[in-house]
C-alpha cells in the first residue's frame, strides 16, 4: 500500500478515526493489526519473515537483559545473526552468487550454487536496522527489554515508518506506545500539513521529474551530454522529493496519532560540505551508522589512516545497505572518498579561501557540494555500472559543450526528446525553485513553525494551492517510492 494511493487514504482515515474512538487500552492492538494489514498489502507471505525476526529479537532482548557479561554478548550475536541473516538471504544471496559466478567464469568453472527465485520483502533493510538497534541498545544498557510482545512487535511494525523509515531507536519510540494520546487540534493540523507537503513533493515534483529521468537513464546512449546532465540534476531533486516526501508523510501520519518520529531530512541541498550533507540527508540512517558502526570502529579517535579507513568502510556498507548492486557500492565509496579527500585537503582549501577572500561565499560551497552529490547520484540511479560510467564520462567530457549551451542559451528542447513536454519541463523547474524557496524562507525553523507565522489569508491560499496542485498537477501512476526497494 503506497502513501500516494487511494487505498492508503481510506486506510488512514479508518485507522485514525478508530484510534481516537477506542480506549487507550486497545490502541496498541489496533495499530498492530492495521500495521500487519498495511504490510500484507504488498506481498502477504513476507509478514512471516518479519514475524520470525520479531520473535527472535523479542526473546533475545529479554535474554540480554537478564544475562551476565559473556552470555549477554551471545544473545546479542544470535539476534544480529538472525537479522543480518535474513537480509543476507533475501537481499544479498543472489548478488554474491552472481559475483561468484563471474569470478569462477574467469577460471572456466561453473558455479554449482543455485540461484534463489525470491523477491526482496519491501522495506526489509529498514525494519531490520530498527530491530537491530533495539537489541544493541539493551546490550548497552540504554534501554529496558520490552515485556509486552504486542508493543515490541509494534515497535518494529508501526505502519507509518515500517517500509522506509525513519529508522527509529527504542528510546524514542517504545515509550510512546504506552502514552495516552488525546485528540489535539494543533498536533493534528500540523501532521496534516506535513502530509500535504510530503504528498506535494512526491506526486507533483518527484513523479513529474521521474518521467524525464526514466526516459534518459533507460537509454543513455541516445542522449547528448546536456540531456544526461539535466536528467542527473532532475534525479538529484527527484530522489530528495521522493524520499523526504515519504518521510514527511510518515512523520505527519504518526504525529496525527500523537507519535513523534525523528526528523529525517533538513534541507540537505543547502549543505556547505559533504560532511554537513550527511548530517542533513537521511538523518536516521546516518546516525544509525554513526552509533552502531562508525563509533565502535573507533570513529575519529584513532590514527588518521585508520580514521579514513573507518569512514570508507562505513560508506561502503551504507552503499551496500541501499542495494545489492555494484552501482550502490560505488555510490557509497564515492561519498567515502569525498569525505576523506575533504578532510585531507581541508587545511589547504582553507588557506586558498583566505587568500582569494572567497571564504564568505557560501553559495560556492553549496554549489560545489550539490554538484559532487549530484555526480554520485549517477551511480545510484543508473541501471548498471557500465551505464553509470558511460553517463559520468559523457557529462564530464561534455562540460565545455554544456557551459557553451548555457551561456548562449542555444538549445532546442523539443529536439532533445526528454519525454517531458516543454510546458511540463518548465513547470518542473518552477516547482523545484518554489520548493527550494520555501526551504530557504523557512530557514532553521520547521516548516510547520514557518507556516504558522504566515498571515491567515496567505495560509488558506497556500492550503488550497497545495491541495489543488496535488489534484490537478499530480502524476497519478501509482509510482513507487524509490526507497521502498531497499
Amino acid at each position, binding site marked *: 500500500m503506497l502513501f500516494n494511493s*487511494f487505498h492508503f487514504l481510506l486506510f488512514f482515515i479508518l485507522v485514525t478515526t478508530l484510534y481516537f474512538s477506542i480506549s487507550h487500552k486497545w490502541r496498541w492492538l489496533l495499530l498492530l493489526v492495521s500495521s500487519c494489514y498495511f504490510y500484507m498489502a504488498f506481498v502477504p507471505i513476507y509478514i512471516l519473515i518479519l514475524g520470525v525476526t520479531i520473535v527472535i529479537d523479542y526473546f533475545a532482548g529479554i535474554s540480554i537483559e537478564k544475562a551476565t557479561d559473556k552470555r549477554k554478548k551471545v544473545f546479542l550475536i544470535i539476534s544480529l545473526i538472525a537479522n543480518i541473516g535474513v537480509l543476507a538471504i533475501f537481499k544479498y544471496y543472489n548478488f554474491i552468487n552472481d559475483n561468484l559466478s563471474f569470478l569462477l567464469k574467469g577460471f572456466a568453472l561453473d558455479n554449482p550454487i543455485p540461484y534463489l527465485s525470491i523477491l526482496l520483502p519491501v522495506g526489509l533493510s529498514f525494519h531490520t536496522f530498527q530491530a537491530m538497534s533495539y537489541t544493541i541498545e539493551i546490550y548497552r544498557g540504554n534501554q529496558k527489554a520490552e515485556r509486552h510482545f504486542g508493543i515490541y512487535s509494534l515497535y518494529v511494525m508501526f505502519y507509518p515508518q515500517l517500509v522506509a523509515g525513519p529508522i527509529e531507536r527504542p528510546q524514542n519510540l517504545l515509550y510512546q506506545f504506552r502514552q495516552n494520546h488525546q485528540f489535539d487540534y494543533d498536533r493534528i493540523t500540523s501532521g496534516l500539513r506535513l502530509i500535504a507537503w510530503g504528498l506535494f513533493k512526491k506526486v507533483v515534483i518527484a513523479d513529474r521529474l521521474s518521467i524525464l529521468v526514466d526516459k534518459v537513464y533507460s537509454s543513455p546512449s541516445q542522449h547528448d551530454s546536456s540531456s544526461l546532465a539535466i536528467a542527473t540534476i532532475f534525479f538529484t531533486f527527484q530522489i530528495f522529493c521522493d524520499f523526504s516526501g515519504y518521510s514527511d508523510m510518515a512523520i505527519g501520519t504518526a504525529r496525527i496519532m500523537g507519535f513523534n518520529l525523528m526528523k529525517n531530512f533538513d534541507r540537505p541541498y543547502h549543505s556547505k560540505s559533504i560532511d554537513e550533507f550527511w548530517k542533513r540527508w537521511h538523518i536516521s540512517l546516518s546516525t544509525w551508522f554513526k552509533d552502531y558502526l562508525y563509533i565502535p570502529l573507533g570513529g575519529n579517535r584513532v590514527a588518521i589512516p585508520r580514521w579514513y579507513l573507518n569512514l570508507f568502510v562505513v560508506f561502503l556498507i551504507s552503499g551496500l545497505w541501499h542495494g545489492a548492486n555494484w552501482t550502490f557500492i560505488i555510490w557509497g565509496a564515492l561519498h567515502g572518498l569525498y569525505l576523506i579527500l575533504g578532510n585531507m585537503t581541508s587545511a589547504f582549501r582553507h588557506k586558498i579561501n583566505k587568500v582569494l577572500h572567497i571564504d564568505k561565499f557560501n553559495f560556492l560551497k553549496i554549489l560545489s557540494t550539490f554538484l559532487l552529490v549530484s555526480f554520485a547520484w549517477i551511480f545510484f540511479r543508473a541501471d548498471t555500472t557500465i551505464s553509470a560510467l558511460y553517463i559520468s564520462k559523457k557529462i564530464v567530457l561534455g562540460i565545455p559543450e554544456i557551459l557553451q549551451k548555457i551561456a548562449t542559451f542555444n538549445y532546442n528542447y523539443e529536439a532533445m526528446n526528454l519525454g517531458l513536454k516543454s510546458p511540463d519541463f518548465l513547470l518542473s523547474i518552477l516547482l523545484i525553485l518554489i520548493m527550494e524557496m520555501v526551504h530557504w524562507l523557512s530557514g532553521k525553523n520547521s516548516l510547520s513553525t514557518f507556516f504558522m507565522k504566515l498571515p491567515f489569508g496567505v495560509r488558506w491560499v497556500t492550503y488550497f494551492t497545495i491541495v489543488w496542485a496535488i489534484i490537478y498537477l499530480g502524476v497519478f501512476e501509482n509510482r513507487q517510492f524509490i526507497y521502498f526497494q531497499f
Partner: protein
Amino acid sequence: MKKFLLKILLIAIPTIIALYLVVFWVPPGSTQKNFMLYALLEKNQTLDTTSKHRIIFVGGSNLSFGLDSKKIKDSLQINPINNGLHAGLGLKFMLQNCSQFIKEKDIIIISPEYEQFYGNYCNGNVELLTSVVDIIPSALNTLDFDQYLSIIPFLPKLAQMKLSDNLFPIAINKEIGIYDKKSFNSFGDTYIHWTLPSQKVYPYKQIEGSFNHEVIGILEEFQNFSNSKNARVFIIFPCIQKTSYNKFQSNIKEVEKRLKKSKLNIISTPERYIFDDTLMFNSQYHLNKKGVDIRTTKIIEDLKKTVYQ
C-alpha cells in the same frame, strides 16, 4: 474536534465540487475524442448489428493489436467481431458490456491480459472512468461497488486530461494514428500499425497484487449467462512477448492452473501464444503484422480443433 472538522470541510467541499464540475461538466477535448476508446460506440454497434454465425473476441488491446479477423472469416466462414479495445477497461466491464449484445449460437472467445487476474486490475482504470463519464454515460449506473472504488482514484487524472486538452488543444493529425478512434477496420482490428516499423519493446515491469480469485468467478458467471442464451464461451490465452513471459512465468502459470481447475472451456496453453520479441510492435501484448498473421493462423487452428470440430 468541531473546529477541526469544520476546517477540513472548508477545504474538502470546494475541492470536491470543483473536481466534480471538471470531470462531469467539462466536455472532452479534441485529443480525447480522437482516442481509440471512442471506438467503443462503433464496436458496440457492430456487436448489435452483425447477425448470424458470430464469433466475438473479448479482451484488451492484445486482441485489437493482434488479430486479422478477415483471415478468420475467410477460413472459417463465420462473422468475426473483434471487441478488443483496451485492458484498462477491466475484464469485468468488458464482459458487462458484451453481455447485453449476446445472441443465440454466438461463440465468445475471451482473451484477457494476464494482469486482469491480479490485484484490482479487472475492475478497470482511467480508461473505464473515461468511458463511463464521456463515452457511454448510461454505463455509469451499471458498475458495481468494486469498480467504483477502482475508478475513483483516477478522477484527478481525468480532470487533468480534460483541462489540458481544453486549455492547450493539440492540432489533430490528418493521418490516422495507431491509437486513434479511426484506427480500426470494419471487424474491429487495429490495422494502421500493420504497415509501420516495430519499436523497441521492453518487458513488462511488474504484475501488481496477488492472484484475484474473483476473476474466475466473474468468467464462470459470464459463461453461465451466455449458456442461458444458447451461446458458448471459450477462454484463450493472450499473445505475449517472450521476454515478458520469461519474467512473469510463475504468474502466468498460476493463471493457467486456476483456469484449468475452473469450469471454463480453455483453448490451448499460454506457451502456444508466446511471441518472439521481433514479432512485437510497441508493447508486450501488441503484435506487428507478421506476429498478427502467425497468431491468427494459430487461433484458426485452435478454433478448428476445439470449437468448430
